[in-house]
């Protein structure tokens, strides 16, 4: 991973090495009342730390977690279809690797162009951002070895494979500049494929790849030699249509059903549901924010009403309503699974908040930016797309990631409407004879650690993104 940094011009101030005694004096006993606070608090903190460590390593009854590790991870996912999950992990690892490699390469190019100092991201850098997730994975491996889940494939092998796939993918940073968009395209395609490895490549599943590859075809087909604008548009649309039809045909030919998300559970469901809700809520929120600032009153009022209503209602209410009310809003006879309804509710909820965040970013942009665009004779949509949005969205990355993190954590509410996600697995575990009333705190701590590991990594990633984009502000 790479970052852009401002060139270092000043030399570092002299460092005064403090010995331990000075440190204690400076930080713990700077004056009499701080010293008193230290004397009172220190034993209490030490005692709490002792109890916590004792719980972790001595008294904790971790069998409840160890025995049910597979349940936590994949829930009630059919065990004989487990290869799908492994294939998904490997595909996603490859996709993330390619994405990270491509992002790194384009950051490097931009830094070189602008003759900014460019710091090649090191392994320590990556570890600093990802340590919470790495620690969690190590914890999983420790649990997995202390209790053999009888899985035919060693978890070590899967983790090793994922790291390898990620590393291979990361080599995308070596691709020449003109292939940069190919890297992004590959990332998107692999994400979809990784999803469908589990959900199946049935004939109806052509849509996501159709959109991605169709738009790719639309933008890469060479049209320069056509003079007429309409002819160019026609050729582009034709190319997109051909690609979409081919993809449709391929899916129709494969037509193999997999395990739909109604049958997913555990951490697997939590991660996927959050990811899908985030991916859908972002464009929806963006449109709502634009609608709320629109000059068309009807659009503005509709958006405002939507945002204010949704923001005034707790998510759990929306989730319950989703279970009962969405049924009235879709054509009769449409079957919607509980998970689909939950995703709809979560997306609707998050979109309202994202809309407000984006609106904040739009308002913070100095009016001179729009005026400069207007003065150049740019059309309003172009000003929005090329000038306003890129800056407004950059400015709200921290708030947006915060919203994503809370959406991820809020997915635990699905447990209340009877969907067995990461937290909900506990209910199954403690319904078992062996663990009735046993290890309740332990499973809770484990789940909390799991959420924290991902949330913390997301937060760190957003900090890095912020740093990287600061230069071109």
């Amino acid at each position, binding site marked *: 991973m790479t970052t852009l940094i401002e060139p270092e011009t000043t030399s570092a101030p002299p460092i005064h090495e403090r010995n331990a005694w000075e440190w204690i004096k400076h930080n713990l006993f700077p004056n009499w009342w701080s010293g008193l606070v230290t004397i009172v608090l220190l034993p209490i903190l030490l005692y709490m730390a002792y109890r916590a460590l004792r719980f972790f390593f001595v008294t904790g009854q971790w069998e409840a977690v160890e025995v049910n590790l597979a349940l936590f991870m994949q829930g009630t996912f059919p065990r004989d279809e487990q290869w799908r999950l492994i294939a998904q992990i490997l595909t996603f690892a490859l996709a993330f690797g390619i994405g990270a490699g491509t992002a790194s390469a384009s950051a490097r190019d931009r830094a070189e162009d*602008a003759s900014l100092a460019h710091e090649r991201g090191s392994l320590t850098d990556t570890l600093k951002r990802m340590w919470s997730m790495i620690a969690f994975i190590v914890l999983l491996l420790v649990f997995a070895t202390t209790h053999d889940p009888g899985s035919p494939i060693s978890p070590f092998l899967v983790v090793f494979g994922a790291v390898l796939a990620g590393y291979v993918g990361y080599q995308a940073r070596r691709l020449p500049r003109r292939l940069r968009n190919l890297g992004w395209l590959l990332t998107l395609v692999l994400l979809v494929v990784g999803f469908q490895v589990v959900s199946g490549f049935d004939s109806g599943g052509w849509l996501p790849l159709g959109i991605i590859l169709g738009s790719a075809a639309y933008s890469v087909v060479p049209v320069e030699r056509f003079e007429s604008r309409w002819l160019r548009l026609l050729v582009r649309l034709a190319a997109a249509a051909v690609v979409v039809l081919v993809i449709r045909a391929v899916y129709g030919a494969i037509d193999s059903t997999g395990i739909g998300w109604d049958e997913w559970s555990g951490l697997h469901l939590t991660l996927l549901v959050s990811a899908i809700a985030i991916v859908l809520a972002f464009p929806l929120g963006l449109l709502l924010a634009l609608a709320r600032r629109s000059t068309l009153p009807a659009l503005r009022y509709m958006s405002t009403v939507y945002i204010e209503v949704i923001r005034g209602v707790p998510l759990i209410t929306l989730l319950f309503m989703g279970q009962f009310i969405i049924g009235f809003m879709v054509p009769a006879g449409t079957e919607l699974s509980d998970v689909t309804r939950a995703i709809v509710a979560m997306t609707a909820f998050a979109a309202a908040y994202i809309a407000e965040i984006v609106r904040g970013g739009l308002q913070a942009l100095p009016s*001179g*930016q729009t*005026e*400069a665009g*207007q003065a150049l004779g*740019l*059309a309003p949509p172009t000003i929005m797309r*090329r000038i306003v949005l890129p800056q407004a969205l950059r400015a709200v990355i921290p708030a947006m990631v915060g919203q994503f993190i809370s959406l991820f954590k809020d997915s635990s509410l699905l447990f209340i409407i009877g969907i067995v996600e990461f937290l909900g697995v506990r209910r199954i575990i403690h319904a078992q004879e062996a663990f009735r009333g046993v290890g309740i705190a332990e499973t809770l701590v484990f789940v909390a650690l799991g959420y924290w590991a991902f949330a913390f990594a997301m937060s760190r990633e957003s900090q890095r993104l912020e740093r990287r984009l600061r230069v071109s*502000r």
Partner: protein
Amino acid sequence: MTTDQTGQQFADATQAKGEALIELTDVDKFFGDFQALKDINMNVGKQEVVVVIGPSGSGKSTLIRCINRLEKHDRGTILVDGIELSEDIRNIQEIRRETGMVFQQFNLFPHLTVLDNIALAPRQVRREPKDEAEKTAMELLERVGIPEQARKYPGQLSGGQQQRVAIARSLAMKPKVMLFDEPTSALDPEMIKEVLDVMVELAEGGMTMICVTHEMGFARAVADRVVFMADGQIVEVGTPEHFFTNPQEERTKLFLSQIL
């Protein structure tokens, strides 16, 4: 010089020599109850350089911002190259493409490189191919003297360099008239000259320009006419030499005594 003669000279100076590119007739502009422009009548001829001066709040910026419809005038007519400003967005955009504008705060796009800042409008508005637009952008950067900064971001440049990029950005649309809204007011003193040099060169190259500025040296050197505004009205118009050496109105004399 008799009063009659100066009066005659003054009357002549209110009109552009030759064909008018910009014509404002009886223009009024209100911000709520406050009247920012009162009964403005003014024209600017082809290749003419008009400098607008006046105390702050006198409506100078509002005046030139009305010409490319960054502000909407409430009464009167504004003609730019024969096109009358109306509500029609296409009409407004057509006029904006003919007028370049340079702002006090530069208003460069901070998320784009210098080159992209300049090439954006030609690519988006005129659909120029990328390499062609970038080639023109490089030529313009050479013209304003900073081709080596092409791949940098505006935030890495000094104020003077940024303003020169802003000028190049406006020129990329090949405007018929350039509007300058206090282009040097936000600059540190040592950077003012490099921007003025570019503007002088532009004026000498025959560009039609309207400049709101406090740079009296610039006004003296290149202006064909100086327009003095106060309280939303045009108080006095004259050639620079007439204007600075023999102002007619009390208000003008007061202002000049304060700044010179």
